[in-house]
C-alpha cells in the first residue's frame, strides 16, 4: 500500500471514528426521543473542557478522565432531558428544535465566559509516540482514539441488543405507546437514552482533546458533521451511523489527498444533499435500528 494512501486512509478512519461516536449518540437520541439534538457539538466542547480541567486539577493523564467525563456528561444529558426536553415533548417541532439550539448557544457562551477564548493544550503519556509500518505513520493518540471509538461503539451495540434496558430502549424507539402499555417507564427510557447519547460525546471528547486542543468551538464542526452521519446512516440507525461516520472520514481524507483539499469538507455536504434527494432513508438502513 503506498504510504500516502495508507496514511490518509488511517487518519480518515480516525476522524471517522469521532464522527461515528458523536453521530451514534445523536442518532440514539433521535431514534428514541424523536428529537434532534443541536447541542451535540456543544456538549463535545463541555467534555473537552472537563477533560482539560481534570488534567489541570489532578495532574493525571487525560485518558484517566474518561469515566469521569463520560459520567458527568451522561448525568448532564439526563438532567437536560428531565428538566427541559420533557417539557417540549408532544409540542410542535419548532419548540423541540429551538430548545436544543438554545442549549447549544448557552453552552458555547458559558464556556467562553468561564475559560475565555484561549486555546489550551493537553498532552498524554503517548503524545510523542508514533507508529510506522512501511512508511505509513499514525500517531499513538490517533490510534488510541480509533481503538476507543471501536470499543465504545461495540459496547453500545451489545448493550442495546443484549440487556433488558437495551431492549426497553429499542422497544420505546419502535413504538413508545406499546412500550408504555407493556409496563416500560417511557420517560425514564427517554432520559437514559439522552444520557447514553451524551455519554458517548463525553467519550469522544476525551479521545479528541490530545489531538485537537481545547477551545470554545472545538465541538462545532463535529456537531455539524454528525447530522450528515445521521442522515447517511439512516435516522435512528445506530449501526448505520457508526458505518456512515467512518465512511465520511475516509472519503473526506482520500478526496483531500487525491482530488482537492479545499473541497474536502464541501464534498461531505454534497453527499448529504445527494442522500437527502435520492435516498432520504439513509444509505446504511438494513442494519440494526433502534426504531
Amino acid at each position, binding site marked *: 500500500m503506498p504510504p*500516502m494512501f495508507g*496514511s*490518509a486512509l488511517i*487518519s*480518515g478512519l*480516525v*476522524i471517522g471514528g*469521532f464522527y461515528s461516536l458523536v453521530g451514534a449518540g445523536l442518532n440514539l437520541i433521535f431514534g428514541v426521543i424523536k428529537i434532534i439534538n443541536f447541542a451535540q457539538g456543544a456538549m463535545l466542547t463541555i467534555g473537552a473542557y472537563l477533560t482539560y480541567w481534570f488534567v489541570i486539577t489532578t495532574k493525571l493523564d487525560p485518558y484517566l478522565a474518561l469515566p469521569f467525563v463520560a459520567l458527568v456528561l451522561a448525568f448532564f444529558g439526563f438532567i437536560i432531558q428531565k428538566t427541559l426536553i420533557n417539557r417540549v415533548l408532544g409540542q410542535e417541532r419548532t419548540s423541540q428544535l429551538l430548545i436544543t439550539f438554545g442549549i447549544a448557544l448557552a453552552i*458555547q*457562551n458559558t464556556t*467562553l465566559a468561564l475559560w*475565555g*477564548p*484561549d*486555546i*489550551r*493544550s493537553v498532552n498524554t503519556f503517548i503524545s510523542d509516540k*508514533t507508529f510506522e509500518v512501511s512508511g505509513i*505513520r*499514525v*500517531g499513538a493518540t*490517533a490510534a488510541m482514539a480509533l481503538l476507543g471509538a471501536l470499543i465504545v461503539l461495540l459496547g453500545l451495540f451489545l448493550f442495546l441488543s443484549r440487556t433488558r434496558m437495551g431492549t426497553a430502549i429499542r422497544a420505546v424507539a419502535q413504538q413508545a405507546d406499546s412500550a408504555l402499555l407493556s409496563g416500560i417507564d417511557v420517560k425514564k427510557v427517554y432520559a437514559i437514552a439522552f444520557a447514553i447519547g451524551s455519554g458517548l460525546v463525553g467519550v469522544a471528547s476525551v479521545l479528541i482533546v490530545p*489531538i*485537537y*486542543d481545547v*477551545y*470554545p*468551538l*472545538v465541538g462545532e*464542526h*463535529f456537531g455539524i*458533521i454528525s447530522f450528515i452521519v445521521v442522515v447517511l446512516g439512516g435516522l435512528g440507525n445506530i449501526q448505520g451511523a457508526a458505518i456512515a461516520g467512518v465512511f465520511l*472520514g475516509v472519503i*473526506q*481524507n482520500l478526496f*483531500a*489527498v487525491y482530488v482537492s*483539499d*479545499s473541497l*474536502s*469538507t*464541501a464534498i461531505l455536504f454534497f453527499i448529504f444533499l445527494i442522500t437527502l434527494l435520492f435516498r432520504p432513508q439513509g444509505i446504511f438502513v438494513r442494519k440494526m435500528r433502534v426504531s
Partner: protein
Amino acid sequence: MLRKVITVKSKVSRIFALIAVIALAFTVVPSSMAAPAKPKEVRIGLLFPTTGAFALLGTDQMTGAEMVLKWANANGGINGVPIKIFYGDSKSNAAEGATAAQRMIDNDKVDIIIGSYSSGIAQAVMPVAQRNNVILWEVGAVSPTVNSQGYSNFLRTVGVSKTYAAADYDFVTKFLAKKLGKKATDLRIAIANNNGAFAASVGDAVNDLFVAKGLKVVAKEVYPSTSTDLTPLVLKLKAATPDVLFLTPDAPDSLLFWKTAKTQDFNVSALVGSSGIGGAGFVAAFGATGVEGVYDVEAPALASMNTSGLKSRVADLTAQWVKEFGAAMGHPCAVHCGDGIGGTYTLVTDVLPRALRTSNSFSASAIISSASKTNIQDGGTPQGFGVQFTGTNSATVGENTKAKSVIMQWQSGALKVVWPSNLATSTPFAPMKTWDQR
C-alpha cells in the same frame, strides 16, 4: 433751518445704525457657520470578534486598541475632548459584524468604528460604515479585497497581504537562500493556506510575487479553515519535498498543522508561518524546543521588538502598554495586540487632533481630510513603521503606504523580531532542527 439739519443728521444716524446692525448680523452668522461649537466628545466603537473562532487574537487586538483609548482619555482626550468608548462583538462572523456595526451606529451614535481583526468581517462592516458616513479605522484585517470598492470612509493602518509577501521575498532572497546554501531561484518553496479571507489573501500574494520573481514554487495548497484533519495537507506537502514552507493558517489549525507535521515526520529547512504560529498558544502547546526556529511573518510583536529606533516618547509609551497588556492578559503583547495599539495610536495622536484643530469636528469628512495630511515617518508609531494614507484619487483608498511586515522567529520560547535588522532583537538562524533532533 436748524430743525431741518437736526432731522437730516438724525436720519443719517439711523441709516448708519441700520448698516451697523446689518453688518454685525453678517459678521456673526457666517462666523458661526464656519466654526461649529467644539464637540463635547468623540464616540468610538471597538468592533472585534471577542467570541467565536477568532476570539483569541481578536480579543488581543481589541485590548490593545482599548488601552490606547483609555490612555488618551487619561491624558486629556483629544485636545480636551473626551473619548467615549463603545464595545461590539462581531462573533467571528461577517454578518454578525455588519449587524453589530449598524447597532453601534444607530444606538451608540459612534463617529468611528475601530476593527476588525478579520478581513471577511471588515469587508462586511465597510459598506455599513460608508452608508452611514462613519469611518472604519481598520487596524487588523490585511486582505486587499476589504476595500476593493474604494470606499472613502476606509482608513487602514496595518499593511495588506502584499506587505507579508514583500517581507517574505526580502527575507528569502537576502538571508534564507544564502543560509541554506542555495540560489534563491533554486530553493524549493511550498505555500499553504486555509481558505479564509485573510489566509487566502496572504497565500495568494506570496505565490503571485514569488512566481513573478522567478522563484520555484513546488506546491500551492489550500485547505478548509474548518478542517478537522490536516494529514492530507501534510502528506501532499511532504511529497513535494520543499526547502521552505510558507504557511498561513488561523489559530486552531496552526496547532493542528504542527502536530500533524510531527506525526508525519514532515521536515523543512524553514517554516515561515503566520497568525496562530506567532500566538502564545503555539509555544504553550509544543514548548520552547517544539517551536524553536519557526518563523512568523506579520506586523511586529511589540513585546519582542527592538524599540531603540522609535522616537523616545513612542518607545516609552510602547513599553508601558506592553507591560500593561502582559499584566492584564497573562501573555505577552504580540502581533495582534501591537496592531490594536499601533493603529489606535495614530488615530488619537495624529488624525483626530488635526481634525479637531482644522475642522473643529469629528465628522467623517473632517477625519478623511485630516488623514490625508498624515505623514508619520518610520519610528513614529509603536509598530515601528510610519503612516501615510493613499487618497480617494488613488487606485487603493485609505491604505497605509508605509506599513511593513517583519520576520520573527521562535528562539528559546520567545518570538523575536529577526528581520529587518533595524527592528531586530535577535539574529535569525536556519535550518531549523528536524523532528528527530527536537
